[in-house]
């Protein structure tokens, strides 16, 4: 492995750092990263909101579930390529098409995970809520949601990663900016240092999200455990 360290295949850390620094200075990296992050935030939010909603509904309603189950499997397994092409071709190379393509790819994953969680809900607690006439909202927020929390966290963590993987393809196929666009150019030039620098920037952002948002959420939601 050390053998490769000097080649351009796995560039020396110093080289990656210098590329990183230069792309930061030139404003290139912040620009593309920013664009991608914006897309990520929007499509992630839509996918999580819709996914949690639908997941809960399917998990609690056997009939609807039986009906939509096949569709779910289909959407889960249609190649990203297909949905991306169709979205672009139907709606044009516009931002909304890109975001829709990401959402369509991510949504079934969230639904499947949350549905699995909903199926394990504690019937005793739901009965309690019903018996004490808790409102729908209260039941959802205070009885159902905390039980789904681990599933939501799993969907969030692996979801961020998945969206990021998809967004790269989405940008590659129809946007003129963003990390995916940029990474592909680097790939064409086989500029591994560039790829690394951008990857590091992205991973750093996700680490930040993890530390600033997910970890505290975790702690908050686990504080009641023994």
């Amino acid at each position: 492995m050390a053998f490769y360290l000097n080649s351009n295949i796995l560039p020396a850390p110093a080289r990656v750092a210098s590329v990183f620094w230069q792309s930061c200075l030139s404003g290139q990296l912040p620009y593309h990263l920013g664009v991608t992050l914006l897309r990520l935030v929007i499509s992630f939010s839509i996918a999580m909101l819709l996914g949690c909603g639908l997941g809960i509904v399917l998990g609690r309603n056997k009939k609807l579930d039986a009906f939509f189950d096949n569709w779910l499997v289909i959407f889960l397994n249609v190649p990203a390529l297909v949905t991306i092409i169709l979205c672009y071709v139907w709606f044009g190379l516009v931002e909304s098409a890109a975001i829709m393509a990401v959402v369509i790819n991510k949504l079934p994953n969230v639904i499947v995970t949350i549905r699995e969680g909903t199926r394990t809900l504690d019937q005793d607690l739901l009965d309690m809520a019903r018996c004490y006439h808790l409102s729908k909202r209260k039941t959802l927020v205070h009885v159902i949601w905390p039980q789904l929390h681990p599933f939501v966290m799993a969907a969030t963590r692996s979801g961020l990663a998945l969206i990021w993987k998809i967004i790269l393809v989405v940008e590659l196929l129809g946007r003129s900016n963003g990390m995916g666009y940029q990474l592909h150019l680097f790939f064409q030039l086989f500029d591994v240092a560039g790829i690394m620098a951008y990857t590091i920037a992205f991973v750093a952002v996700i680490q930040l999200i993890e530390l600033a948002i997910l970890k505290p959420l975790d702690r908050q939601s686990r504080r009641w455990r023994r």
Partner: protein
Amino acid sequence: EKTLIKIGVQAYGTADWELAALQDDPQTKSADFIIKKQPLANAEAGKIALQSGAVDMIVSDWIWVSSLRSSGEDFTFYPYSGTSGALVVPEDSPIHSIKDLQGKRLGIAGGELDKNWLLLQALAKQEQMDLNAAVEKVFGAPPLINEQIKQNRVDAVLNYWHFAARLEAQGYRQIIDGRGILKGLGIKENVPSLGYVFKESWANNHKQALDNFFKASKQAKNRLCTSDSAWQKIIPLTRVDDLPTQTRLRQRYCEGNIEQWGKQEQQAAERIYTILHTLSNRQLTGNSEHLQPGTFWSAH
């Protein structure tokens, strides 16, 4: 008022260079068209952009245009470049001709339907060699194929022209290029491999401007090939910082210049089409036996 032409170009590709040179030309300001450039990451993105109507024009190949036309679309093609891929080996390689490929590992960009690969097989067949069986094929993405030969994991590569040029600049030896293969197959004409692709109906509405654009584009290419100062300006767009590679890229790019485009060339294209149709077992061309009429745009 001026005609707006939206062009999807592969970022840092040759069309990108050319448009940069064109826009740099003071004459363009007075022309009757305005160029709006949409950079895209790869060729497929271009096809999507064109079909979704996001751009008016992209650079692509005429076989695809023909198959589009056979399904009822009215896209058409105007030649842009004749540069094509090449078979490249390390400098000290014992391989000097196609015959020497026997039993060797061959890296191929683009998969089994790659035009150059199909044509190379046809050429080998003339020399009584079943290339498909004779070599160990390694398909992969162009940059990875280049890496493979640098690591000596393959003995020869058949790659797209600018990837091949990069290898050449590093001392690798070209055995044969796309045009050489065609010559070997008896096609003497210089048939363009790439061209501008656009909707015929759209073109008919903007004939004059389009014609002017094509002329200006040709001039821009000539300038890049003849004027060193013009070339210097677009060097950043090549994304290459060593002189040998830059020189090699410019050389190959300029060799692809289309000087002749008439009946003869179009008939040659028809012949190439037939060869590819058989070789690829229709997969590359679709079911249509012949090049669709109207594939090549004639402004007149």
